[in-house]
């Protein structure tokens, strides 16, 4: 079945302004948007640039805006979309070229929350003991694939890219909620800062955008509760 794709094009080496280009693709059964993008690149226009790698929703490379909603191109079935399919780069990030956005700031925010285990006691020669119930506390937090869909959907981030954003804060929660971690105070200067957890206005766009069905807003609320418990 033939479908039309209206794709955001930007390459400052060729033209200073962005534009949209429409392609018609013969869609096979069970094709995802990524399959369609590959078909365009390989058969019609080799200059179309986008990121992709695992093509099954675990590497996080191909997050983009598809018919107005952030998602992973490799996971969105073309048959689930209506009309002309509009494909744009993730909003809120600088566009490098076509559907490729600059993720350096996103990853530097991640690094800022000290995303590593800060344990108060040295380990033994065996594993640290953690009950299955304690381990459950980080379910819904550790699965993030860092695709950027959430941060890119966050209005607080759109107006202020210094805001750590939902992905970095979800990662912070993944460590703060880990019963093996004692690093909340070490992370305070970042979390409890002007661009930390207080910049979240609980808009819930991140929850809607997450292709892994995670809940960064809830994670931020958990961080606030932890901080409140520490301060009061």
């Amino acid at each position: 079945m033939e479908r039309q794709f209206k794709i955001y094009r930007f390459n400052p080496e060729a033209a200073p302004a962005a534009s949209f280009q429409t392609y018609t693709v013969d869609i096979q059964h069970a094709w995802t948007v990524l399959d369609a993008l590959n078909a365009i690149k390989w058969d019609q226009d080799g200059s179309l640039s986008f990121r992709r790698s695992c093509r099954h929703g675990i590497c996080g490379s191909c997050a983009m805006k598809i018919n107005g909603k952030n998602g992973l191109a490799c996971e969105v079935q073309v048959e689930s979309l209506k009309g002309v399919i509009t494909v744009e780069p993730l909003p809120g990030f600088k566009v490098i070229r076509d559907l490729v956005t600059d993720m350096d700031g996103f990853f530097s925010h991640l690094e800022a929350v000290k995303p590593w285990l800060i344990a108060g006691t040295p380990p033994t020669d065996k594993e640290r003991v953690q009950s299955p119930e304690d381990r459950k506390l980080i379910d819904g937090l550790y699965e993030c694939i860092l695709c950027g869909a959430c941060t890119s959907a966050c209005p607080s981030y759109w107006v202020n890219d210094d805001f750590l954003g939902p992905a970095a804060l979800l990662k912070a929660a993944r460590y703060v909620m880990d019963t093996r971690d004692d690093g909340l105070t070490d992370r305070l200067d970042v979390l409890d800062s002007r661009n930390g957890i207080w910049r979240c206005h609980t808009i819930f766009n991140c929850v809607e955008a997450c292709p892994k069905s995670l809940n960064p807003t809830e994670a931020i609320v958990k961080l606030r509760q932890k901080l409140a418990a520490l301060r009061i």
Partner: protein
Amino acid sequence: MEHHRHDVVVVGAGIAGLYAAMKAGESADVGVLSKVYPTRSHSGAAQGGCAAALGNEGNDSWEFHFYDTVRGGDFLGDQDAQELLVKEAIPVMYEMEHLGVPFSRTAEGKIAQRPFGGHFADFGKTAVKRACYAADRSGHAQLHCLYEQSLKQGVRFYNEFFVISLIIEDGTCRGLVALEIRTGVLHAFWARAVMLATGGYARAWRVTSNSHANTGDGLALVAAAGVPLEDMEFVQFHPTGLYPHGILISEAARGEGGYLFNNDGMRFMEKYAKSKMELAPRDVVSRAEQTEIDEGRGIDGGEYLHLDLTHLGEKTILERLPQIHELVVKFAGIDCTKKPIPTQPTAHYSMGGIPTDLDTRVLRDGKKQAVEGLFASGECACVSNHGANRLGTNSTLEAAVFGRRGGMVMARFVKEAGPILPGAERPTREAEEGFEHLCASSGPESAKRIRAELQASMTDNVGIFRTAAKLQKQVALIRDLKARFENVGISDRSRRFNTEITELIELKYMLDFSEVIAVSALAREESRGAHSRNDYPKRDDNQWLRHTLAFREADGSLRLDYKPVVITRFQPEERKY
């Protein structure tokens, strides 16, 4: 060209590369180049677990793990390397837990373990829970943890840098040349130690579980520098790729009790591995599946079978195999708590690779002599841990154990080796000229067609069952494709994030090592592990208990050599499951 200096440069940011970077970073200045952002690396796709005989859920010992690894590899693995792998597995697993990997837990709070194909206690007798796991996101959990630890260690990351050439002079590796994809600018990296951790090569097949990035870059780079490639004919086909794309459905699905059915509703593994059934090693199960398909018992006569989890119940599936459930819904539109999953064998893992010694040094003769300053670990390397067929969950284990080991070896090496010496101008200039030549490609041939023909023919001719006729045909075909590649053309002339160029270079790499695979497979006239020859159906220990080494000669031809297998403890025996 921009220039950089680091004591250690690591190429690739999967589990092996990051573990090496983190360890070396404790005392050395380390830079990591990755053609994707580190957390995009394919290690993150590993689902089921990472083997270590912790004995948290039943009696286990490294010796049982050792035996399973040797036997699983059909006795082609080097037993000194395998012994080291299974012994170090235990402290490395604890270290990963200490670093923060969110392993699932037993009721007592220890690292949880699950059964897996080929894992047995008491030297092959009873199934044992040995795979340490984090739900079915084990690789993802390890990859992210190691990336984060590398950040903590102050490792410098060069994200989306694609290596196009190694600089090796007088038997010493001095650095490499890489393309910054974002700008199209070339960079020279000068280092005392370079580690290749570029992952596997199964992208050369049409049906594959591998990511688009798994194009065997490191292998093609060292082969171009005259280093041989070892045991390249051994490629594992995973029994449960989601039909029709081959996306991985973890072996954990069978570990947790999934059944395989053919079109007659029969659990066909009864015929092929009566005692171990679905939990026989991967090569055995994949051959069984391919036989069923070839003999017309695929579902509705098609090219797939059914993996049935429905009897496990919704609770177990959602708790232990959440990602598989999600994958099958998203990519096949099937709820696996209610319906069986359509599966087919899928090209999955590369047992062969860059020959190294136990300290991850790359061997330029494939046997003894190292290239000074060049290291390799993980799937791109061949130590050889896996022999003719890798045991499930030994892959992330190898990446961790040998990545870590390589990191420590490199840290010691750079301390003793003195200052970084930039090489001559010639190699960087040659790399630049080669790159410019490719950028200017304007012939009539299409890269997409060459790639599609390569992948389809590799699946047809160098798949699960091979014959001399198919392999001869494949060798000729690849040579033809290589000739056509010389006339390839691209349309994108800009430098900024030009993925047409990077895909073209990846295709060149794939053509190079695919030829090695086909030639090595044609020469090996026996069936062993993942290499099954219909015309030589038996394992032949007299002739072929030896490793293949394929050298790319200066004139572009391939020369095969062999080296003996290291056998320390377990003598070859018949492999039955």
